[in-house]
């Protein structure tokens, strides 16, 4: 079979299987198996899968996945996130403090959690009812929280960057560190959006926030856990004291201690966090295993290499290729969630990006930002539905979608900034390497 027949065959099968609602890990495997049996007989394919499963899962780096998932779930079930939000806005004598507080809390939460949906759910669960009660506009309240959740996947630790590193074989530590500066710039851009909103639609932001200031103990007990957990991850990786896996384990260990002592975590919450971790691992386990099969079939027929050669033969400028790749991800991101998209598309596209001369760490940051746009764009924008689901009677899905638009604009601006100033993403990793 020719490479383009295999590529097209896989694509058509995948589209059909995903369209009929087959869960994505199974669709990925089911699309790959007929082509695998075209390469090997059945008994050889069993052994081949055995070797591939062992090869992919007997991996210390990959161990960071369940540990970071556990970390996020523990934080989500403790009061650490809600307390952080309270500190960020209560008694702050600035109009719009709850909106700025939401951004700050999402950023702080992002420093300890790597999942966008968990970020939106945790901070949104407390902030959305409070913002609506205080009189903030529905579009602003829902938009800032849906977008704020995306900070979790850019500010380290980030599950998307982790999976990107696994697929592209790029240093996960460097990827995490590369996301830090763009993450902070994104926080500033989101603040600018809220300031602009307050001028454009002043009726959406109440003038006075009369809630009382928290006590010093409450402030410290809310901020210190986030600083400790966030610092353990970032400093340990940046200084090379620990690998991302070790940083994840230590952070999870400290989170268990802090969540029980100052975070109000109950035993039932702890059990729920463990259950949620295994639930996520259930689908990630199969997704990654199916992704390996898919990757094997693609590589056997040299689909990524041939695809790259065809594109390079067109002699398109690197900017044109990047624009096409980003546009592709924005469109596909409307229908697929980011983790599945990473395992389905990235093995074919990243060789093209590398061959076009882009740094794969730099592209990792750009890729993550496009994934953030993906979770904010309908019809399959996960964060949109998470936020709408938090106040179904008060906020409509179109409120959330419209509310997100200015924040999507900020994400596009960030891509532009990183394109013009690549060092925004590359300076910290290069300093770390020195």
């Amino acid at each position: 079979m020719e490479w383009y027949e295999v590529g097209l065959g896989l694509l058509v099968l995948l589209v059909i299987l995903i369209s009929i609602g087959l869960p994505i890990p199974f669709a990925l495997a089911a699309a790959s198996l007929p082509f695998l049996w075209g390469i090997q007989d059945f008994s050889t394919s069993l052994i081949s899968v055995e070797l591939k499963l062992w090869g992919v899962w007997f991996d210390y780096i990959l161990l960071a996945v369940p540990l970071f998932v556990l970390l996020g779930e523990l934080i989500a079930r403790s009061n650490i996130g809600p307390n952080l939000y309270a500190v960020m806005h209560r008694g702050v004598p600035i109009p719009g403090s709850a909106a700025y507080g939401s951004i700050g809390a999402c950023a702080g939460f992002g420093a300890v959690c790597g999942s966008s949906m968990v970020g939106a759910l945790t901070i949104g669960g407390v902030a959305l009812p409070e913002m609506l009660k205080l009189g903030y506009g529905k579009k602003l309240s829902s938009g800032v929280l849906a977008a704020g959740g995306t900070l979790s996947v850019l500010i380290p630790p980030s599950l998307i960057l982790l999976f990107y590193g696994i697929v592209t074989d790029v240093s996960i530590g460097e990827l995490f560190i590369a996301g830090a500066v763009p993450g902070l710039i994104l926080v500033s851009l989101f603040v600018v959006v809220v300031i602009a909103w307050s001028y454009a639609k002043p009726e959406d932001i109440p003038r006075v926030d009369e809630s009382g200031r928290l006590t010093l103990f409450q402030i410290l007990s809310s901020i210190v856990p986030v600083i400790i957990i966030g610092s353990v991850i970032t400093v340990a990786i940046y200084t090379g004291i620990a690998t991302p896996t070790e940083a994840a384990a230590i952070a999870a260990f400290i989170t268990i201690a802090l969540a029980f002592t100052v975070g109000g975590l109950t035993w039932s919450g702890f059990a729920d966090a463990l259950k949620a971790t295994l639930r996520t691992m259930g689908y990630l386990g199969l997704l990654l295993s199916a992704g390996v099969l898919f990757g094997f079939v693609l590589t056997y027929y040299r689909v990524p290499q041939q695809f790259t050669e065809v594109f390079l033969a067109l002699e398109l400028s690197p900017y044109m290729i990047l624009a096409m790749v980003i546009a592709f991800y924005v469109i596909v991101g409307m229908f697929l969630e980011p983790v599945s998209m990473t395992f389905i598309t990235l093995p074919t596209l990243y060789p093209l990006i590398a061959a076009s001369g882009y740094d794969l760490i730099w592209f990792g940051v750009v890729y993550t930002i496009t994934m953030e746009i993906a979770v904010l764009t309908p019809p399959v924008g996960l964060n949109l539905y998470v936020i709408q689901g938090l106040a179904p009677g008060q906020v409509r899905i179109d409120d959330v979608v419209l509310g997100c638009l200015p924040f999507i604009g900020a994400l596009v601006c960030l891509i532009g900034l990183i394109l013009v100033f690549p060092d925004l993403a590359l300076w910290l990793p290069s300093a770390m390497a020195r």
Partner: protein
Amino acid sequence: MRSRRPAVFLPSKLNNVTGTIETLYRAATRLSIALMVMGAAIVLVQTFWISYGVFMRYIMNDPDRYVTEATALLLVPVAFAGLGYALMTDAYPKVTLLTERFSRRKQQFIEIINLGVMIFVGLFFGLSACSATWRSFSSGAASEVLSWPKVYFWAPVALALIGFNLYAILKLVKLLIAYGRDRSGRD
């Protein structure tokens, strides 16, 4: 949770079959939960062991030589321990934009087809894991540094995939019965 009594209009033999299926379904559910608990316990062990390893390396200046390989080996069962539980809690990501437009009956039919494909994939991975378990048991294959037998890590994977397939097959049988009952009710 007690099983629902089968519908009265069914012949007694079919009532017995549905009763047996319910019993097996509950057993498969318990197996999926037990495997999830095992996986959760392993994740906790990994968390504490790796933290201990870092502590020993930097504070006690006496690195733990087991931690890296041991915790990596333990990841193999963790990756599959939640398979059945994820199916139970409908945690697998899917795109339902198209199927939501179908009638309820067509949705049921599509669900049956999808579950059939999931079982097909699950059986393939399950066969591979069972073959790996048997081969590592008979060959005595072991890990490189610690020489821990690989069968210890393949066996839970095989069990997790058997549990997943058992649960999925019983779910499919229940769906087929409901589908058939629905059709006979309409007739």
